[in-house]
């Protein structure tokens, strides 16, 4: 471990990520998708992960699941280094961490019945058989709001997007995981169905004592479910802190713009936020020093020469910026 554990986070971290780095390709074609990202997730909490398209949110999630291999850094689950696990140990770890994806329909095997899709991980590990297994699966389906009697033997194509997402959730819970990584799990759903799935997720989280990494680009959705939020930009972590603190007084210039652009369904809200001009640079050739400096109005020479480290500005609120925004907490100015 090169970075010390974040202050304000006790020993109860279920997941500890240190300097996680994922680089795709080599040499001139190397894409720096995730660069030295460190964070903890405490058992029972939801950490939201936000940032613009391509900033490395999914790659982070996939690296934790070892769907992609980290180039550097360590990942510890419950104090055990899982970064280099292979074979049976890795498969065992994967039952304790599950991932749910955006596209609910294509992430389910179209040729299998719903009941068997949900039971797949159980069958794979031969954990339960016969009536015990069937009862367990029926119960899981009921918990996610799918009637096992009328719908258990159907195929995914006869379900709507929201129902498929319910089935994905049931499957992910079959092995009783500790950590769920939700990657844009409600992004493709209509707002009325999205609310149902988010409520369901909150209920199941409480019921199963789950810990969540909730990846999404929708800032309102993330605020609604997360205890803490982490912001990424071009592969790096900019800021991490308690949701309310981060949304009310962001300290990183990028976070300010990102949150400023979020639209509230309220005609009295600010019509024209300060807009961040341009687009993120290519991860093939990221800027030196602070990766946000090419768009940052506060950038100075130091930002080009020195990579800002993640520093604490308030308890549990950490920022990677040489010149973080001054937080005015008391006088309401």
């Amino acid at each position, binding site marked *: 471990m090169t970075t010390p554990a974040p202050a304000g986070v006790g020993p109860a971290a279920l997941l500890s990520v240190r300097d996680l780095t994922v680089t795709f390709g080599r040499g001139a074609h190397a894409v720096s998708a995730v660069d030295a990202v460190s964070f903890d997730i405490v058992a029972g909490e939801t950490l939201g992960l936000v940032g613009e398209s391509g900033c490395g949110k999914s790659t982070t999630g996939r690296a934790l699941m070892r769907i992609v291999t980290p180039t550097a850094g360590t990942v510890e689950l419950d104090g055990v280094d899982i970064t280099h696990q292979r074979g049976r140990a890795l498969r065992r770890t994967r039952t304790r961490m599950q991932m749910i994806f955006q596209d609910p329909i294509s992430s389910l095997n179209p040729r299998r019945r719903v009941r068997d899709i949900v039971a797949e991980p159980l069958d794979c590990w031969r954990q339960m058989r016969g009536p015990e297994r069937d009862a367990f699966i029926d119960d899981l389906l009921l918990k996610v709001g799918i009637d096992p009697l009328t719908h258990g033997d159907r195929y995914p194509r006869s379900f709507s997007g929201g129902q498929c997402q319910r089935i994905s959730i049931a499957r992910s819970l079959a092995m009783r995981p500790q950590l769920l990584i939700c990657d844009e799990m409600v992004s493709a759903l209509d707002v009325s169905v999205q609310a*149902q799935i988010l*409520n369901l997720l909150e209920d199941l989280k409480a019921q199963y004592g789950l810990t969540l990494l909730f990846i999404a680009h929708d800032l309102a959705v993330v605020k609604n479910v997360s205890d803490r939020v982490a912001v990424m930009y071009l592969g790096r972590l900019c800021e991490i802190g308690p949701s309310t603190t981060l949304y009310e007084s962001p300290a990183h210039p990028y976070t300010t713009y*990102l*949150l400023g652009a979020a*639209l*509230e*369904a309220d*005609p009295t809200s600010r019509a024209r936020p300060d*807009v961040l001009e341009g687009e993120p640079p290519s991860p093939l050739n990221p800027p030196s020093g602070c990766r946000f400096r090419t768009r940052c109005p506060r950038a100075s020479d130091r930002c080009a020469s020195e990579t800002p480290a993640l520093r604490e500005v308030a308890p549990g609120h950490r920022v990677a910026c040489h010149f973080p925004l001054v937080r005015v907490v008391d006088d309401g100015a």
Partner: protein
Amino acid sequence: MSATPERTTSATTAPVASEPVLLSVRDLTTTFATNAGPLRAVDGVSFDLGREEVLGVVGESGSGKTVLSRTIMGLLARSRVTVSGSVRLDGVEIVGASENAMRQLWSTRVAMVFQDPMTSLNPVMRVGHQIDEVLRVRLGLSRTAARARSLELLSLVGIPSPAERYRAYPGQLSGGMRQRVVIAIALAGAPALLLADEPTTGLDVTIQAQILNLLDDLTARLHMSVVLVTHDLGVVATRTSRIMVMYAGRVVESGPTADVFADHRMPYTRALLECSPRVSNAPHTRLAAIPGRPPNLAALPAGCSFAPRCAYATERCHREVPALVETTTPGHQYACWNPLPARGGPRP
């Protein structure tokens, strides 16, 4: 607002620029013949759009927003589709107009921006040439004049180094840049009416803010009227003067934006607002989810289409379709048998 349809069956009237209303839609109904029977994707929609006005059309997926836009644009295939009612643009009737007559209007009178820029761009043609083509075919510009104008349009929509981007293929551009190109194409003929169908859906919030600001600026600068179609209430909240809420092909509530947000009368409007997560919510705020999901238009329930999901539904709701009725606020209408009380106390 009178809903008396002014029925005209052919393109007869010449544009009357002095009229305050640019677009007048009456009782517009679009029906697809499907294997499951007739599917009424747009059902009796009426509205007026003033000059330089921005109207928001909101609704969940499948509520008929895209079909409405394509019907107004005259873009639907002619087989297996029946359109009735009236759409008059500058007094010219569009319903029943020939494709040739529509071509006269496309780009110079009315243009459309589609949700997915990739589907409206040709992937194997340089983006500059795609803009040139519109300018040459629709406006009759020469090759050189078209190129010069294309470059102007690319910079008008905020594309940096237009000369370089002119030569790019759509696949070489980011989603935000592609949407700017699509907007450039739509603006090529300086249309009076822009139909923007989910122009920012799928884009990052930062890029969405850029594109919405761009549309704002262009609307003012080019004196356009805009129909802004979206499923996102946040998009219409501050960018429109009026909104129309659609459910299952029908307008269920419409009126001045501020009024519809603050004093909605139709339960679906309220449900839609309340189930949307807010940035201002505290973590773990329970959302007021709407049970069930939007109906299948090929098998609509009798009566109010929202009845199976509505907490206020009574027996009548399952039998009779409620008509739009006026509130005391001018232009604010709703369709509901059991409306919410007017300004029923402060809403969260």
